[in-house]
């Protein structure tokens, strides 16, 4: 069994093109009881890598006590600025499926699903066929919509229904796929599980922070020399993350942290040294989320960038909930006006008002996440609003 190369090459070092190679590289999956698995996960302090960062041991415990559980591995990754799940499924699918098998053992599940992008489906079907897991994994094809990766949308997809979110309660761990207790975990979380079960909690905790130990996959894009998926210990700084991606290409003004439902963090000497943790980024209402970082160069207008993202998000609502269905397009139109038209104080006030109407009023976090981005934009790019009002733009482009 090959020693994993460097501490921050854990998941990405587990690349194996076949089951044989995978076992050769990492060894077979240890046979461990469900209770032992749950103990190991609790000791490791593993938190979800899908964005919410929920302690995995608690999710396992919630489902484990119930009968006829279901495991859903969520690799749908609807977020355009994220590619980590895709890369993981391409490079180390067997590790992900090991994690599924471990989760099945931990919860006593009798059914398992892998929810993955449509264009990877054929490859993944081959991968599944190479295995002989006690509970076979059924592949579910995910469409490319933003909302397809939401937890209850994943549950709906596993039922063969349209991948749109459902109202909770009941939570999936109580009633999910066909009314059965369902564990939904991001594929990266499950891959980490596949490593924890082999190398143990102490190994896992050897890097990263105490609150959210281990490594995490990052998707770094935007004004960097080598945009791509990288792996780093949790708690590494924003600057270190950009360095992994070859460093900033040109002058960066802000980072979008946490993806399209995240927030802008101004790029300054102070902030560059901030660790990518919930607590450090709290003043900006940002969180590591699913490890998404987008570098906004100075030559791009922050207001316009936000307006583009919100226009996309508005088009991606599931159409189920009134405040979101109506509010997001309204916000998109307003932000567009802010970025390309005349940003009056009245307009800024209206944006805040509509944002308040939309926040938290929907079946899922889509409206809330979008509002977070909008509010962040108004805060961080307030100087740009002033410039636009004077008929100028920090990016040097005409606004009208």
């Amino acid at each position: 069994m090959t020693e994993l190369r460097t501490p921050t090459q854990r998941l990405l070092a587990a690349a194996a093109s076949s089951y044989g190679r995978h076992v050769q590289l990492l060894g077979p999956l240890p046979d461990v009881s469900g209770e032992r698995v749950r103990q190991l996960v609790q000791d490791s302090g593993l938190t979800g890598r899908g964005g919410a960062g929920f302690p995995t041991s608690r999710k396992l415990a919630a489902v484990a006590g119930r009968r006829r559980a279901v495991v859903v591995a969520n690799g749908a990754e609807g977020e355009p600025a994220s590619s980590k799940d895709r890369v993981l499924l391409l490079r180390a699918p067997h590790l992900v499926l090991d994690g599924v098998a471990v989760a099945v053992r931990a919860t006593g599940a009798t059914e398992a699903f892998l929810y993955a992008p449509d264009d990877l489906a054929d490859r993944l079907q081959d991968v599944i066929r190479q295995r002989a897991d006690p509970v076979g994994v059924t592949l579910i094809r995910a469409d490319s919509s933003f909302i397809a990766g939401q937890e209850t949308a994943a549950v709906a997809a596993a039922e063969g229904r349209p991948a749109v979110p459902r109202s909770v309660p009941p939570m999936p761990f109580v009633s999910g796929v066909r009314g059965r207790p369902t564990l939904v975990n991001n594929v990266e979380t499950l891959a980490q599980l596949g490593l924890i079960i082999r190398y143990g909690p102490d190994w896992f905790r050897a890097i990263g922070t105490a609150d959210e130990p281990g490594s995490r996959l990052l998707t770094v894009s935007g004004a960097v020399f080598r945009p791509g998926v990288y792996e780093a210990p949790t708690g590494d700084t924003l600057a270190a993350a950009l360095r992994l991606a070859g460093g900033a290409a040109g002058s960066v003004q802000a980072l979008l942290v946490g993806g399209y439902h995240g927030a802008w963090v101004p790029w300054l000497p102070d902030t560059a040294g901030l660790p990518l943790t919930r607590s450090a980024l709290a003043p900006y209402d940002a969180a590591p989320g699913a490890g998404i970082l987008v570098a906004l160069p100075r030559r791009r207008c922050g207001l316009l960038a936000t307006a583009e993202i919100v226009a996309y998000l508005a088009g991606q609502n599931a159409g189920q909930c009134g405040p979101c269905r109506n509010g997001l397009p309204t916000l998109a139109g307003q932000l567009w006006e802010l970025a390309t038209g005349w940003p009056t104080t009245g307009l800024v006030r209206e944006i805040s008002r509509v944002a308040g109407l939309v926040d938290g009023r929907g079946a899922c976090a889509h409206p809330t996440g979008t509002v977070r981005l909008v509010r962040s934009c108004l805060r961080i790019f307030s100087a740009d609003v002033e410039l636009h009002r004077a008929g100028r733009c920090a990016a040097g482009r005409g606004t009208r």
Partner: protein
Amino acid sequence: MTDRLRVDWTRCRARGLCLELLPELLTADDWGYPLSRSGETEPSVPRWLSAHAERAVVECPRLALRISPDPGEPGAGRP
């Protein structure tokens, strides 16, 4: 243990009966959907409004309303 009025947003179609039956707690947003007057997303239902709130729950043509106790955990269970 406070009771809160909760809306199933996938069911609500802004029919507006709840706005008529619970004007103390609810008003219409820009699009006719029930908006809590208190600023909280899910308003707490005081005892003196219990009966009216329950009536709103029963009368909603879409069965989109529900009253349940507050577990006291902020953001509990949000995916």
